[in-house]
């Protein structure tokens, strides 16, 4: 099945003529299924929810959560908010950058890992916190980071 067909199939799940309030649920469904919101989907979404392409593009790009390029096989998010800062997340980030060989908002050399910031995962009493794909990990020391990274590497 090509990309456009998969996108159409996902849009079909929302029935005929979904309202504008279905736009975020549509974008979530696309990202859940495809890993990202492909730029070529904007036109199809716009037709489905009866909006202009500019309006759909505006929504996709407003929200940090939606990505318009395929994700790395493994996304590592490090919390940058105050609570995690107070427990050494700056040092943890530096450690992660050295381990992955890349900075925030970029991919590791082999392309397998993406390193992203996140602003609070709601685990502030057990900082510092990171998320690897969809799993949250708390009280993360550099040694624990290495162990988590090793099992993530094994899994991909």
């Amino acid at each position, binding site marked *: 099945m090509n990309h456009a067909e998969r996108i159409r199939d996902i849009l079909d799940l929302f029935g005929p003529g979904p309202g504008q309030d279905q736009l975020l649920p549509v974008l979530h469904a696309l990202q859940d299924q495809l890993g990202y919101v492909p730029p070529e989907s904007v036109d199809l979404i716009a037709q489905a929810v009866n909006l202009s392409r500019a309006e759909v593009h505006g929504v996709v790009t407003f929200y940090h959560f939606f990505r318009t390029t395929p994700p790395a096989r493994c996304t590592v998010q490090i919390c940058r908010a105050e609570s995690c800062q107070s427990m050494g997340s700056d040092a943890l980030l530096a450690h992660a950058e050295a381990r992955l060989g890349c900075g925030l908002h970029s991919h590791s050399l082999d392309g397998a890992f993406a390193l992203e910031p996140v602003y609070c995962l709601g685990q*502030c009493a057990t*900082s510092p916190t990171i998320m690897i794909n969809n799993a949250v990990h708390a009280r993360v020391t550099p040694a624990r980071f290495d162990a988590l990274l090793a099992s993530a590497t094994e899994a991909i």
Partner: protein
Amino acid sequence: MTVRIYIPGDSAALALGAHDVARAIAGEAAQRGIDVEIVRNGTRGLLYLEPLVEVETPAGRIGFGPVDVSDVKALFDAGFYAGGCSHPLAHGMVEQIPYLARQTRLTFARSGITDPLSLADYEAHGGYRGLRNAIGMTPAEIVATVTASGLRGRGGAAFPTGIKWNTVLRAPGPEKYIVCNADEGDSGTFADRIVMESDPFVLVEGMTIAGMAVGATRGFIYVRSEYPHSIDALNHAIGIARLRGYLGANVLGSGRTFELEVRKGAGAYICGEETALLESIEGKRGVVRAKPPLPALAGLFGRPTVINNVLSLAAVPLILDQGAQFYQDFGMGRSRGTLPVQLAGNIKNGGLIELAFGVTLREILYDFGGGSASGRPIKAVQVGGPLGAYLPEAQWDTPLDYEAFASLWAVLGHGGIVVHDDRADMAKLARYAMEFCAIESCGKCTPCRIGATRGVEVIDKIREGSDRPRQVILLRSLCDTMLNGSLCAMGGMTPYPVLSALNHFPQDFGQVAGNERAA
């Protein structure tokens, strides 16, 4: 005899390996031929002890924590499953752990005790009594009860909940909505998450009562995408409630309709601002609306809308169950009831502390928190999230009360407290506040959109020491513009952490101490 063992299944415990611990305990028990029933409860909020494993005994539940997979064999050797307390991780009766025993659990009365998705458990612990009472009352009576309880919005603005509901009740309109703001984006806060993951039915019940009170038939819970576990828990709870007649076309045979739906955010902090949140549910960019009109009159899809924080709505079932006076009897001054304090950051014993208003910050930091996690002196605490002020030690005897904090030019907000030890660089944290505002600004108003970026630049110059005195004047002027010229609290309150850091910790900005200026 079967031994019942409780192992939390909320995201905090999972982030610390609770699934692996549960598997290890089940495996070890099987190997030793011990018959155990494992219940995945919610959290007690004693997060410093998570994963907190509890063993049921005739005398009560005995706690062990924090338990790592590597501790499991030794726990069995020590006979923990029979209530043996010889293992160093044993804490005795959970209810008697001082951290918990000294709290006043109203909103969080069930948290950690029950299986979050067991409706039978919920009902056995007082659940749905409030809704049953509400069904026998007129809408005006429900609103009057909430007003009389003194409940104020727990999201941060502390607006009286009953007054907001009354506006919606009296607003004409064929359709009204209940919206729950569960976009808990403030660093240092997690009480909403605990409600959703550890006692989701209380939020469902609170919203249903709100619907009865104002004549709304539909509700939305807007949950941030960073909380996938909360979203799952709520969707399950809503499904169960619908199946059992607590939601739907004829709630408990009352003839009244109430439907509930979870909407997932998408990583925009600004969507915690109520009008941006409404825009987001409508499928738009999360851009703040100008007020008026108030959402109570023209909110979601232009209709009268109650929009409340999770904690405000979760307080309602108890008020309808026990009566307004019961709730009103807790607290101080105009701050009635309890405040779920969230103690976080560099603190030894972090967790959820629900107390009547009036306790001091120092009691929270030392009597509950046990001082910093690092063992170093505490330097500053930020109360009320990224838009809250930093408080130096001289202000730690302030009681937790909305008005007392306002008089210090600080905010209580959602009750989040983030602790920093003496290694914190307050100028760096002030820069972060501006940087965060620049990243998360919706872009609608200039003071916030441009001001935050200029703020980062000015603080960089101050930190580099270039033209410092003039840059400090510029920073104060910029903060004045943001405070008074921004459309919402994002730009309007970012100056709180910035100026409080500058005023209370001038040495970190290369300023001479003692030369403080009032904001």
